[in-house]
């Protein structure tokens, strides 16, 4: 037994812990600050206790943003090769948008020469894109707080994304610093046509398929101050965004070409008091809400009610007019100009 070596091992153990903590602390203090958007969900880690699992917008990288080697990975269909690619280190190139939030520009295998980027690891790959984790997907907190946060995501803060502040080191390592709920939330209710066809008396539980034909989109002010929203006629403050995780760019929103953006006017601006909500009805059978199946040659835009594809998936996105468009209108200063996506939904299956 050599006590000096034993002491050295003990010191080494402490140094390992010190390096772990010191590296993170250094990045927190000197790293590039970024804000990322997430939507939270549950679980518990047996070693580290309760935590909230964070699903960042940049965690799902669509095929169009995969560059260099990562673009070639999308063509891999053999599951063994896909397995080998799992956990490969990748770099997400980011830029900060006009709203101060980090947006994904590209995913590549090598770090870019400059600019903010996150170091991540591949979770899964398919033809539509790559799922990546950045090592900041767990927000550890006391069990009660974790349960409270999960509950808030479903009730008190339903439809509101979480804004997570991170600091990024030179090698792309991100450290989660803080989080906050965004002040505005968007929830949707799907409507289907009434059941008209009689059910099979032998199988009364079986319903005829009834794809959705309308939405109720509700905007919630979760902040403690007044907020203004813009409600343009016929739901034109919203747009349909394909859920690339499910069907890549197969279905695209195809409003008529001559449908210009209406100019916001005073009556369109609605002030929401703290805790107030505003519901907007959207008729999906109208041409401005039709979608195009790009996989079908010579296809024409159709209503969501006519889509029978179970993988078709979209998000409704509240897309308020730019600040210069509403300048001079009453309460324009209360308008939050950040786009706000809803949870994904499928015309056949409902909300994910």
């Amino acid at each position, binding site marked *: *037994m*050599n*006590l000096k*070596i*034993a*002491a*050295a*091992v*003990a010191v*080494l*153990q*402490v140094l*390992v*812990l*010190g390096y*772990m*903590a010191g590296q*993170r*602390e250094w990045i*927190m203090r000197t790293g590039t600050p970024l804000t990322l958007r997430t939507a939270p969900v549950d679980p518990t*880690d*047996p*070693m*580290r*206790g*309760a*935590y909230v699992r964070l699903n960042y917008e940049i965690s799902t990288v669509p095929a169009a943003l995969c560059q260099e080697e990562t673009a070639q990975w999308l063509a891999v269909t053999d599951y*063994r090769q896909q*397995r*080998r690619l*799992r*956990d490969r280190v990748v770099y997400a190139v980011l830029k900060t948008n006009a709203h101060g939030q980090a947006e994904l520009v590209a995913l590549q295998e090598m770090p870019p020469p400059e600019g903010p980027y996150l170091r991540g*690891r591949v979770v899964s790959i398919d033809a539509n894109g790559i799922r990546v*984790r950045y*090592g*900041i*997907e*767990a*927000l*550890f*907190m*006391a*069990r009660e*707080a974790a349960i409270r946060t999960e509950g808030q995501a479903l009730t008190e803060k339903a439809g509101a994304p979480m804004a997570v502040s991170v600091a990024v080191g030179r090698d792309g390592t991100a*450290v*989660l610093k803080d989080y906050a709920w965004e002040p505005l939330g968007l929830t949707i209710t799907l409507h289907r046509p009434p059941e008209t066809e009689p059910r099979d008396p032998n199988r009364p539980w079986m319903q005829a398929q009834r794809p959705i034909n309308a939405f109720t989109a509700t905007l919630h002010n979760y902040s403690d101050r007044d907020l203004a929203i813009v409600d343009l006629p016929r739901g034109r403050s919203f747009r349909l965004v394909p859920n690339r995780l499910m069907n890549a760019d197969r279905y695209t929103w195809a409003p008529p070409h001559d449908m210009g953006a209406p100019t916001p006017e005073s009556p369109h601006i609605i002030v929401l008091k703290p805790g107030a909500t505003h519901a907007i009805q959207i008729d999906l059978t109208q041409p401005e809400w039709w979608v195009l199946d790009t996989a079908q040659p010579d296809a024409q835009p159709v209503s969501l009610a006519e889509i029978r594809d179970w993988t078709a998936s979209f998000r409704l996105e509240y897309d308020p007019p730019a600040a210069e468009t509403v300048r001079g209108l009453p309460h324009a200063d209360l308008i939050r100009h950040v786009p706000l996506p809803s949870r994904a939904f499928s015309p056949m299956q409902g909300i994910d």
Partner: protein
Amino acid sequence: MAEIDRWQAEDLVSVEQADRLRQRYAAPTAAVPWGLLVFASAGAIVVGLGVILLFAYNWDAIPKFGKLALVFGAVVAAHASGLRLLARDGWQPRLGEALTLLGTMLYGAGIWLVAQIYHIDEHYPNGFLFWSLGALAMAWAIRATANGLVATALVVIWGACESIDFHSPRLAAILLLAGGVLPLAWRQRSTLLLAAGLAGMQFLLALSVIHWGGGPHGFTASLAFGVLLLAAARLTTVHRFGFAGGAGVLAFFGWAAFLVCAYLLSFHEAADDLLDWSRDHGSNPALAAAFGWGLFAVSLAGWAWLARRALVRREIVVPREDWLVPIALVYCFGVAALGGRGWELLIAWSFNLMLLGIAAMWMWRGCRASQFQSTVLGSLLLSFVVFARYFDLFDSLAARGLAFIILGGVFFAEAMYYRKIRRNTGGEV
């Protein structure tokens, strides 16, 4: 000695007689305080796990640097007091060993706590890897079996997490056990650590090779590993190496692996599939093949060396049935390499006969040498073979009945023969 003191106190013996009695026995050497070591080590592990769970509660009330100070302070305090006691004499080094184990457990807790504080959600098996390296380094530094056992468990957890959760088996996990744990077990003459290391190696080896090359590669590699252990056991018995228990542990794991493989091959439904390397390719068949053939070569080299000593130079004695082991290995690798399908009946019959031969030899040898263990093991093996054939070989009830009558007859004859030999050699019957 205490008994003599009592006799003296009760005037059963005089002082002189008591002294003379004491002189007949050697003065007791300072015994290893196993009770202290075992319970203190168990306590260290449980306390460490408790600390992990306590930290996992993630008290909001404790600020970040408070938590960090707690974990750093706990690791330093445990190691410092442990090293202090290790430098002393008597029973205290044992307690020191337990405290360093506690320090290692707290170090592991610290890894998860720091991850919790900074919301680190990276490749989590790395946590087990760094923890195991810390434990293994400490085990070598203070030659501590308890730290070695913890390191073994952590290496196995690391390797299993990489294989199962990330489909990325780590050769380094097997090498860590082979190069880090087994030599320590040997040096410490610790059968417990050797058993843990071998069990971990066998598990990780099967798991990894199955991932790399599929089930058949995992099967043949496990068989080759078992055959290698049996050669090592025989070599250890011959050379002694001052570690008598080591041979027993090696033989146990070697026979276990070999007999399980041979038993599976005695089922003709499974025989073809288990030796078909072309079936079920894994992620890296070339590595799986290299691993299997590497073990095959080392195993055969070991047995060739034994053959030279036993058959050519006649320096040592190797039981006849043991030679079936390398023969079975060559047979299996040969069939697998030739890629022969449709040989399932030949393979199954071969292994049935092989198992029956081993069982018969163990029973006969056990009776001849009045060794209860060999006799029972041979009987059990024979029973397993007969019961296995109950389902797939003996179609009719008449054949099954006959098989049981013969088995019962064999046991009866064995009992009588064993009794006779024991009586002749003067042993208890």
